[in-house]
């Protein structure tokens, strides 16, 4: 056998890097036993490749071998460690179970807590919406009142107090008359709610001769909150009166039911 030619064929390099078939490997192995030159060649190839491989490594951590020995539960490090792996395993097991239990309980608690918070949150949302509505109402209310105040302060307004009449001495009302836009604002807070089947009716009066003109009935009196009503009035009124009339109102005022009356200041 031409050993040199065999070596030069490049088969030994492939042998070391693992490219040969099982049969070829067996062959090389047998030849190595037979010919020391072949064995030496293989060893040299191997040594060069080991160095080349190591040169590519950025460096192996010194602790790696310890980690491997730990995982393999080697005992060779020191003899007194012999008992340790077992007790450590148990300790780990118990700690593991304990941790799992704590985590489980914690998880349940968290889930529960979460549910409660969700409920609280939706309650808060409702409350919030309710408060927003209230604020909005208050704002609207405020705007309406400011508007009213502005109207009453208008320089064109004539104020006419209506005093209680006869049996209704406790009743009172006020008329704010804006001649410029032919409207009156009736403040009827001093009148009681109209009884069932009855309605308040507002009258414009001229005094000489005494002529009443109906300004209409106040249908929503009882339900109105601020008891201020805007009524159109294009008459040359000299006085205003309010009577309680049967539902629907009357053609002329029922004088026994005249609750308040006031004369426009000349």
């Amino acid at each position: 056998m031409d050993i040199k030619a065999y070596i030069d064929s490049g088969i030994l390099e492939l042998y070391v890097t693992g490219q040969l078939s099982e049969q070829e490997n067996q062959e090389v192995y047998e030849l190595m036993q037979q010919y020391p030159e072949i064995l030496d060649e293989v060893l040299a190839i191997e040594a060069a490749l080991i160095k080349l491989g190591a040169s590519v490594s950025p460096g192996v951590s010194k602790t790696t071998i310890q980690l491997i020995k730990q995982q393999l539960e080697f005992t060779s490090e020191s003899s007194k460690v012999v008992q340790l792996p077992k007790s450590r395993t148990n300790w780990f097991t118990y700690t593991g179970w304990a941790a799992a239990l704590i985590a489980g309980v914690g998880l349940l608690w968290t889930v529960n807590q979460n549910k409660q918070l969700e409920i609280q949150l939706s309650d808060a949302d409702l409350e919030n919406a309710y408060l927003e509505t209230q604020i909005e109402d208050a704002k609207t209310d405020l705007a309406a009142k400011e508007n009213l105040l502005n109207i009453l302060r208008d320089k064109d307004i004539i104020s006419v107090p209506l005093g209680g009449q006869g049996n209704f001495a406790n009743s009172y009302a006020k008329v704010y008359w804006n001649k410029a836009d032919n409207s009156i604002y009736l403040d009827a807070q001093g009148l009681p709610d109209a009884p069932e089947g009855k309605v308040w009716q507002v009258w414009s009066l001229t005094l000489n001769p005494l002529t009443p003109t109906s300004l209409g009935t106040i249908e929503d009196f009882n339900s109105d909150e601020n008891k201020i009503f805007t009524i159109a009035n294009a008459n040359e009124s000299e006085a205003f009166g309010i009577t309680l009339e049967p539902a629907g109102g009357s053609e002329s005022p029922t004088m026994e039911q005249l609750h308040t009356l006031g004369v426009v200041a000349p």
Partner: protein
Amino acid sequence: MQLETLISRFQQKDEKAFEELYNMYSDSMHGVIYNIVRDHDIAEEVMQDVFIKIWHRASSYDASKGRFFTWILNISRNAAIDKTRSKAFKNSGKNLDAQFFVDILETSESLNDKTDAIGIKNFVGKLAKKCIEVIELLYFKGYTQKEASETLNMPIGTIKTRNRNCIKELRQMVLGS
């Protein structure tokens, strides 16, 4: 101690023998694995797994089927390639473009201070590109001759002789023989 004796003691689960083999091969296996996974920590992790695996599989090694080095080299390359195919590894977005082992030598700042490694770095830089390619594929990547011939687009016979000549050149650089 003779390598054969060491290996047979290792096969009888001798922890000291294992540690000695580790000292002999861990750097080179780490290099081979690192060249495939291109991450220092992952390479250490894979290498750990490799040595744990060989301990458990010690009895399956058969000297007549190949060198101990070749055996552990195969296990390392396979483990590293398996790692690169794992989902977690793919998600890590590693760039495994066609870079050769020499690129690591050229770019690595952290090259260990082993003097011979620095020596090799200087030598290997002088290896011809055709050598680098063929050594990369056959040694570092574990390609078959056929795969290498297809990748490099040259006949199998040429691959074989080129590999021989290139490793010969390497030997002269690193071993002086």
